[in-house]
């Protein structure tokens, strides 16, 4: 160590520069003062999942069909689904209970990726503190359901793409249905078939692709 400690003086010049520049240069003072100002949340930020519904009524417009694909794909197993039934006990393609335990959820987005109905998306809300650490962090169906408009506000690009995809899928399903109807009509005209067969083919929109049991 020489008396003229060159390296030390150089370092001190750097810190002095930083000290003074922090008063007039933005990049030298990047702190965000949290409660007053919030750092910009990008549309792609993911935090916890939410469920999408179309239209105005949250329950009727629900896209989720309770196929439990997301439940199976969830690595920490924090999704909990029970299928809905109508009064007669017949299953309806929609969850009666859809819970996500946010204290367990690790925001991995695998549920979003496996969902074939584009029904589940990631929210970027991050202020989720709660007084009750058990029930408070368990988000149920009512709180999870958000409208498509909310999704459009959250991430317009992706939401538009999703809408286009669904529209295309619906159109395809519609076309198929029409074709099938036409075919069956033709077939019915040609040869008499038992009506039960007709009844058996449900509209393609509601038919889930075979859930991958092994996944």
């Amino acid at each position, binding site marked *: *160590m*020489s*008396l*003229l400690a060159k390296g*030390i003086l150089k*370092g*001190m010049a*750097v*810190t*002095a520069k*930083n*000290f003074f520049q*922090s*008063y007039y240069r933005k990049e*030298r*003072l*990047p*702190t965000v*003062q949290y409660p007053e100002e919030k750092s910009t949340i990008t549309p792609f930020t993911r935090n916890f999942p939410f469920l999408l519904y179309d239209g105005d009524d949250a329950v009727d417009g629900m896209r989720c069909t309770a196929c439990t694909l997301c439940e199976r794909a969830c690595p920490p197993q924090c999704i909990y689904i029970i299928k809905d039934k109508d009064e007669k006990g017949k299953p309806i393609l929609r969850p009666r209970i859809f819970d996500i335990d946010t204290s367990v959820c690790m925001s991995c987005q695998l549920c979003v990726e496996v969902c074939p109905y584009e029904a589940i998306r990631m929210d970027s809300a991050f202020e989720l503190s709660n007084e009750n650490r058990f029930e408070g962090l368990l988000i149920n169906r009512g709180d999870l359901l958000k409208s498509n408009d909310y999704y459009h506000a959250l991430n317009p690009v992706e939401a538009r793409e999703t809408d286009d995809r669904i529209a295309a899928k619906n159109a395809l399903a519609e076309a198929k249905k029409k074709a099938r109807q036409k075919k069956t009509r033709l077939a019915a005209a040609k040869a008499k078939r038992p009506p039960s067969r007709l009844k058996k083919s449900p509209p393609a929109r509601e038919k889930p692709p075979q859930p991958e049991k092994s996944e």
Partner: protein
Amino acid sequence: MNNFFDLKLVELGRWIEAFFADFPSLKLVVHLLLCTLPLALSFMGAFAFTTWLERKGLARIQNRPGPNRVGIFGLLQPIADGIKMLIKEDIVPERSDKLFHFLAPIMLMIPALIGVGFLPLGDGLHALPLDSAIIFFFAISSLNTIAVFMAGWSSRNKYSLLGGMRAVAQMISYEIPLVLSAVAVIMIAGSLNAQEVVASQQISSWVGSGNILQEFFGRILGWNVFKPWGFAGFIFFFVAALAEANRSPFDLPEADSEIIAGHLTEYSGFKYAIFFMGEYISAFAIAGIGVTLFLGGWNGPVFSGLPWFVLKLFSLFAVMIWIRGTLPRLRVDQLMGYAWKFLFPLAILNIFLAGFYHFIERQWGTAIAMLAGWILGFGALQLAATALSRLNQSPIMRSKRVYQLVE
């Protein structure tokens, strides 16, 4: 001349004392209180302000805003901290030596406050105007070694013990270059009296002359730091003072990345606050004696007295903060080696240089002496420093490293 502020303060003191003129027994008490209480309170206030200054300064160096929640610019942060410290639980380790654990912060606080009393704050503002103030100051300030070791030993914590051991080794070692660099000043000033040391640091032939320019520079150029031996001595003194006050880069006793907080590990709440305050006030005291010895004390152009002293004190502290924000810490063996193998010989050499400079100054007059002194003094010091650092460094560190970039 312009030490108006100091004179008013002294007058105020006399005025208050005058109320008790009829009660001889009370008079002494009041006199003592007037000497000590404002001093203690103002230094505690300065401590509070400095914690804010340090946090803010460090934060700005580190590109963050620092405390800004309590009060404007976070100025009330020290008060909030104080309240927090007061209401915190005081945890004493189960198997600690409780008496010494309790006494250690007090033991640190007392010599720090006494040391402050020796500082000549202004013209006539001097709580303990002893003739041998400087030697007393060094004697008293070395007592905090004991306090730190008490804290380290009584906590019954291995980190505390390590910190205490480091503190003893470090403080005793750095006492020597500290005092030796002060010896040069005392030798030239010819007195151990702090006020006389301050008075010696103005060019007396210029100061009383009435010429504005001479008046102005007479009060600056006389400072010891503007003499070759004084400049070198100031650096030695400052380095040793950093070590004495446990400031970075010599904060080994409380090295947080190695031994957690050293002797402070087992302290919490109010005791910790006292410890903290004691360390800051001893840092103040040692910076104050540095101001007195090398930076001309309360001397200054335009006006002299307390404001100049405060200004110099805080500037010195700002440099300490700046250093703290920049430098990493030395290792314990390097620290000791630096004191004994580097600072100590250089400080001794510096005493001889001071005598030499003083001699030629008297013989040939100031201008030639300054030139010759600067050249010769600096040449000698630089030569010695280079030689010492060469001797102390291992050859592996001397070579410049080259890194190869390969495919």
